[in-house]
């Protein structure tokens, strides 16, 4: 029923024996291993909730697993509002459950280092496939590069690795494209012109390419806050899972698909013993694969789109489809070997349980994704993992005043030219934030963006075209287009939730609250809808709910709209991209 840490015995990654670390949770010692995050410690010990919400007192734990949703908040050494999925434990940490809103009572020692770079020719934000490729391309072009990323190691979500403390002898067995990645990773680490700032995040983007960074253990006090001035910037901030609301989706045990994968690949944690994977898109396949790898029983994989839709979508671009066919076949063999049923046209429409998911209701969907009455079935599960595509992490691009457009999936994306330059001169974008298209496209865009950014920094004009990169980008964009056509999100998802369903998880705003604000107060969107309903005003700043809120609000009034997923730029405006402790902000180093 509960989450667990996969035993090292028989693990294909051949995990070694990490050192034990002394920590306490709510005053009691808890078994913890070096390199684990607070969330990994909790889940390894079978705890999947460690926070209660402010209003209803509901339990919460990990949801997105990659730092976007702010649902897994915990108190560490007296400091509340720390994301358990982002914070790596240290010896002596005293971890406590966060009940509602909590005042800090700091016992942390503030140890601020002051050795950060203050300027670079090119600053790359994000160290996933796009960011790593961009940094190497820029460094190779002869300019100084600073890469800023929240992770402890480069790789992002796609190449998420086990902590070094796990001493895995065969880490490649958990990865796709490991060989190529390690070459890049090692080259980046040794590159004389590239500086990598780990456990660092850009919390503000000031005009004139000044990036404000905070560095140090995630969300703690005493992080170093400083500015880095760049001649050119490459934004490679990636994306996070899109999850659609239904009754019970805020129960512990309901995870984004990305969370399940990050915990499995990054910590050998299984989110449950019996797990159901549901949503849409080929990304659900590697998620199921990761779950199998940590020994979970995957009771089913539900693809919301019908096989007909998927086939028709891929067939719009057969050339692209053939390339991915072999990969799909491989997953098909894996699912068959583990007797995991793959059902098209089905999804989860409710999760049941008091303080934890115990069962889900699944239903067959019609072409518009409305549940077909009578098709509902109840399945006992310990966890459910959901992914309905992705939402790009756009706030820095918005702060940089980059124009947005609709990506291939209809979601918001950054407009770029052939050199990956945004509408803001000197600011480039690569990877998922220019449109959801996967790691290969992200890498290709990163190479183009890094090269172009270096040329910009050197005032050397526009770089010569590299035919191979252009071809790769073109191919990747065609793949992204076919992907979106094969796995569309249909409007019927709105019928899964009720008036009582929480839509904004942070502020516990229900669908009824949102629709009520529209109907009673005549507000349609933007700040007025936020401030009357409170949807999107929590710590995640609307990352999880803004697309859903916009769609639900639009359903309440008759205004012509560009498309279901057309999100106003204002919804992505987060001038403070990640929270900053007030004293750290107060101590921010003087400008140059």
């Amino acid at each position, binding site marked *: 029923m509960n989450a667990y840490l996969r035993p090292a015995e028989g693990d294909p990654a051949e995990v070694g024996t990490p050192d034990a670390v002394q920590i306490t949770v709510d005053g009691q010692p808890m078994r913890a291993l070096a390199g684990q995050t607070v969330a990994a410690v909790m889940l390894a010990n079978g705890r999947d909730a460690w926070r209660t919400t402010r209003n209803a007192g509901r339990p919460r734990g990990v949801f997105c697993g990659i730092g976007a949703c702010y649902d897994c908040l915990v108190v560490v050494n007296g400091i509340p509002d720390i994301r358990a999925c982002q914070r790596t434990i240290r010896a002596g940490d005293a971890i406590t459950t966060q009940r509602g809103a909590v005042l*800090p009572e700091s016992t942390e020692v503030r140890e601020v280092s002051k050795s950060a770079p203050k300027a670079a020719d090119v600053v790359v934000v994000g160290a996933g496939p796009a960011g790593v490729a961009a940094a190497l391309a820029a460094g190779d072009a002869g300019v100084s590069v600073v890469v800023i990323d929240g992770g402890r190691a480069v790789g992002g979500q796609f190449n998420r690795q086990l902590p070094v403390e796990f001493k895995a002898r065969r880490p490649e067995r958990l990865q796709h494209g490991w060989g190529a990645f390690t070459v890049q990773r090692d080259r980046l680490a040794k590159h004389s012109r590239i500086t990598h700032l780990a456990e660092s995040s850009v919390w503000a983007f000031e005009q004139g390419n000044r990036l404000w960074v905070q560095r140090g253990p995630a969300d703690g006090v005493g992080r170093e806050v400083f500015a880095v001035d760049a001649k050119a910037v490459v934004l490679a901030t990636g994306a996070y899972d899109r999850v659609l609301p239904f009754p019970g989706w805020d129960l512990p045990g309901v995870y984004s698909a990305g969370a399940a994968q990050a915990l499995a690949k990054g910590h050998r944690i299984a989110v449950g013993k019996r797990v159901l994977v549901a949503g849409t898109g080929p990304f659900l396949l590697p998620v199921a694969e990761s779950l199998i790898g940590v020994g979970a029983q995957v009771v089913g994989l539900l693809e919301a789109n019908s096989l007909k839709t998927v086939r028709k979508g891929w067939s719009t671009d057969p050339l692209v489809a053939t390339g991915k066919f072999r990969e799909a076949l491989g997953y098909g063999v894996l699912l068959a070997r583990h007797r995991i049923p793959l059902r098209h046209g089905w999804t989860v429409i409710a999760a049941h349980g008091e303080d934890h998911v115990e069962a889900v209701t699944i239903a067959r969907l019609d072409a518009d994704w409305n549940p077909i009455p009578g098709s509902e079935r109840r399945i006992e599960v310990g966890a459910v993992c959901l992914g309905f595509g992705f939402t790009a992490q756009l706030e820095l691009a918005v702060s940089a005043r980059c124009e947005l457009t609709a990506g291939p999936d209809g979601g918001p994306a950054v407009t770029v030219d052939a050199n990956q330059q945004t509408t803001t001169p000197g600011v480039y974008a690569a990877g998922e934030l220019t449109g959801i298209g996967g790691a290969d496209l992200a890498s290709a865009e990163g190479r183009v963006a890094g090269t172009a950014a270096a040329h910009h920094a050197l005032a050397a004009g526009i770089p010569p075209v590299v035919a191979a990169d252009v071809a790769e980008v073109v191919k990747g964009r065609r793949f992204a287009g076919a992907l979106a056509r094969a796995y569309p999100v249909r409007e019927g998802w709105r019928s899964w939730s009720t008036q009582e369903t929480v839509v904004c998880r942070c502020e516990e705003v229900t669908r009824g609250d949102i629709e009520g604000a529209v109907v009673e107060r005549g507000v349609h969107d933007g700040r007025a809808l936020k401030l009357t309903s409170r949807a999107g005003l929590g710590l995640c*700043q609307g990352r999880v709910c803004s697309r859903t809120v916009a769609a639900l609000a639009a359903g309440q009034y008759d205004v012509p709209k560009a498309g279901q997923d057309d999100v106003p730029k204002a919804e992505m405006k987060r001038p403070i991209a990640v929270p900053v*402790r007030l004293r750290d902000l107060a101590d921010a180093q003087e400008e140059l």
Partner: protein
Amino acid sequence: MPGAATADVVVVGAGIVGAACAEALTAVGVKVVVVDRGAVASGTTASGEGNVLVSDKEPGPELELAIASHAEWSAVLARLPERVADVEWEDKGGFVVAKTDPGPLKEFAAKQQAAGVDARVISPEDAFELEPLLTRNVTIGVHYPDDAQLQPVLAATALLTAVRDRGGSVRSGMDALSVRTAAGRVVGVETSAGEIACGAVLNACGPWAGAFGAAAGAPIQVLPRRGMILVTAPLPQCVRHKVYDADYVGAVGSGDAELQTSTVVESTRAGTVLIGSSRERIGFDDSIRVKVLRELARKAVGLFPFLGDVAVMRTYGGFRPYAPDHLPIIGPDPRVPGLWHAAGHEGAGIGLAASTGRLITELFLGLTPHVAPDPFRVDRPAVLAS
């Protein structure tokens, strides 16, 4: 149906001031159409703290308007439709504290007392009774029980709901382009969706009131002053009043372009603590300036040291409209009969909105005004000077 629309008064601007004027007018049966080029309550109204203050004003016409408006808000809230009447009104009181020489604050409070403000001088020992988490460096405090707070977007949308309930209409996404006159009088408003025939037009465009005035043939001097606010992660109840550093008092009346910040710290019902506020004269530039945020953070931690370990999760800001003499502009424009203005309330528009709506209505109907209207008249030199 654009073109066929008619109204007694077209209110241009669906912020708190336009909404309050429309509500007051419809309360006495005037037929009103409210238009806004954007969404309702999404400009200056959505970017402030929701101040209903008497503490920050020197004796004079604005203080008189503020005192009247505090009382008027009760009357307005009482007549709002019940389903939208909760606007998070809180009689929390203001608490101004000095950390240096207690003299100037004491003198300021004495002047306000003479003008009828309930201002109570508080010793440092008693200050911690009022605010237990306050810095120990306080030399004197003044408690203003009549300072209050409301949630401006809830208030504005509730006022507009009342307008609709009374047969008025509210049209967002409709840009008022100019006024049409016949025989020297306003007879309609040209909008992006056609003309609305009307007897009068009320310019309630906030910081953009100068531009609409000019488009209507009657330019007025209204300038934007930018203000930023920091929002913390939700906290349990920890700050009981609106707490100001005494230097706030100096900043409101000033016209210096240079950045000024004066600390204002307060909790909201949602648990967040709001930290304001900065004042910058930089036109309509809305780009983030970390220097400003850092200054706000420094001063807030100086006032409430526990805030140092609290996370700030959001910042927002907007443009406060002000006239060069720092008084609101309320009344008819003698240059274009039928054109009215209600603008230039600077950072006090939320608090002053209720009385502004009543004053506009009284002047419109020829009733005896409840406050002296003359200091706010449109044709004063500071407003008409180009």
